């Protein structure tokens, strides 16, 4: 089963080596197409004018910050239940990327809100729950930083990640459950998207491009994390190794 094949870090690194160039190329291509479409193909909104173009990065970033947390949640289950050796590597390296996507979603939302709502920030359910997600990401990153032993840190962080996953449905349904300024979902709906194809297509292309970017960065960060653990293990061995060479000075003078 492929899932367990990649439990071997060395094998995983080889897999990354093969896959990464293709993913990166595809990601760049999609970004080129998506950015072109969002500026030149997509029409301006009859109400919002050109500001609607912020949507093509805002919405993918918002999706991705939730998907990234879902990846971390799955990885946490992997750490606690299946004891997969790469699970906490995956969770740890996803956190900064997730925090960055959340930051992007917050910033673009804020810059979109100013011309539309007249303020950079309101404390409504959607915005607040995403801000809470941002704090969760930062908290998890800090937890990993404060604990020296990666195995222990991984387990602690996995527990926290699972508890924090409660926030995901709150973010998703906040626009339906509470009355907010934020507009309700228009793409991810059970009865199909409600927006015009000229807007939908650039959005989908950008969303796929963002997703690929997440996987590229995530694989690279996981590779770094594996190397970091390797360095740690080797350093421990280096410390316990005897003094190399005939250290004459180390002999006590009788």
């Amino acid at each position: 089963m492929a899932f367990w094949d990649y439990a071997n870090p060395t094998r995983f690194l080889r897999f990354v080596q093969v896959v990464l160039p293709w993913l990166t190329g595809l990601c760049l291509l999609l970004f080129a197409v998506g950015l072109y479409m969002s500026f030149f193909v997509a029409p301006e909104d009859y109400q919002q004018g050109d500001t609607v173009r912020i949507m093509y990065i805002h919405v993918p970033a918002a999706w991705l910050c939730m998907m990234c947390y879902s990846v971390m949640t799955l990885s946490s289950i992997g750490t606690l239940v299946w004891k997969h050796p790469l699970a906490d590597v995956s969770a740890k390296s996803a956190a900064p990327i997730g925090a960055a996507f959340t930051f992007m979603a917050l910033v673009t939302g804020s810059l979109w809100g100013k011309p539309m709502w007249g303020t950079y920030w309101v404390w409504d359910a959607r915005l607040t729950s995403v801000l809470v997600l941002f704090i969760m990401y930062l908290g998890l990153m800090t937890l990993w930083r404060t604990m020296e032993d990666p195995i222990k840190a991984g387990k602690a962080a996995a527990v926290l990640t699972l508890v924090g996953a409660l926030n995901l449905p709150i973010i998703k349904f906040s626009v339906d459950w509470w009355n907010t300024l934020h507009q309700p979902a228009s793409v991810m709906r059970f009865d199909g998207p409600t927006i015009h194809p000229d807007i939908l297509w650039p959005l989908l292309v950008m969303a796929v491009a963002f997703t690929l970017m997440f996987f590229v960065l995530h694989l690279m960060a996981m590779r770094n994390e594996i190397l970091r653990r390797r360095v740690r293990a080797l350093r421990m061995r280096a410390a316990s190794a005897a003094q190399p060479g005939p250290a004459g000075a180390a002999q006590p003078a009788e």
Partner: protein
Amino acid sequence: MTGWAMALFQRDLRLSVRVGGSALVGVLFFLAVVTVIPFGVGPDLNLLARIGPAILWIGALLATLLGLDRLFQADRDDGTLDLMLMAGRPLELVVLIKCLAHWTATGLPLVVAAPVLGIFLNLDPVSMAAVTATLLVGTPALTLIGAIGASLTVSLRRGGLLLAVLVVPLAIPVLIFGVSSADAAIRDPVPFLTPFLILCALSLIAAVVGPIASATALRFASD
């Protein structure tokens, strides 16, 4: 600055930035406090704008207090403090430099984060700048006053809460003048400079009193 002082400053900065250090936890706590307040007082943006400077100041005070309990304790736990007492360097200066390093690692990030958090509280640019300026000159005073509490509670296992109780009364003047000068910048007729200069003076006084008091406390704590 002489060599030993630089070495101490660098060491403390490195320790708080590296794995196990607490450099950015304070900012995160600051962010958490500011996020929680609108849940308590309600999301009314006008109200938040009015009490925004106060929220930021209280957040900064709590974040500073929270990070202070390890200021001397970590060094006491592994015997470093004993060696520092014997090193032949003026202990008051040692304390001052440790406070400076601690402020650079934990207080300065609060100041940098303040304008961003101001957006959440609907502050206008003028009051944002005013709050940031007052925090810049005020938070060193909080760290220096807090150092007194940190040295008094250095030998206690759970000194954190006691530290906060001891320090908060001493920190009240800083809070008063910090918030009032930030407010003065928003409401026109009140001069900004008067409370601001008092705040600066408080920081300078704390830079003298704090190290002397906590050095004395540390000497008593060694036996």
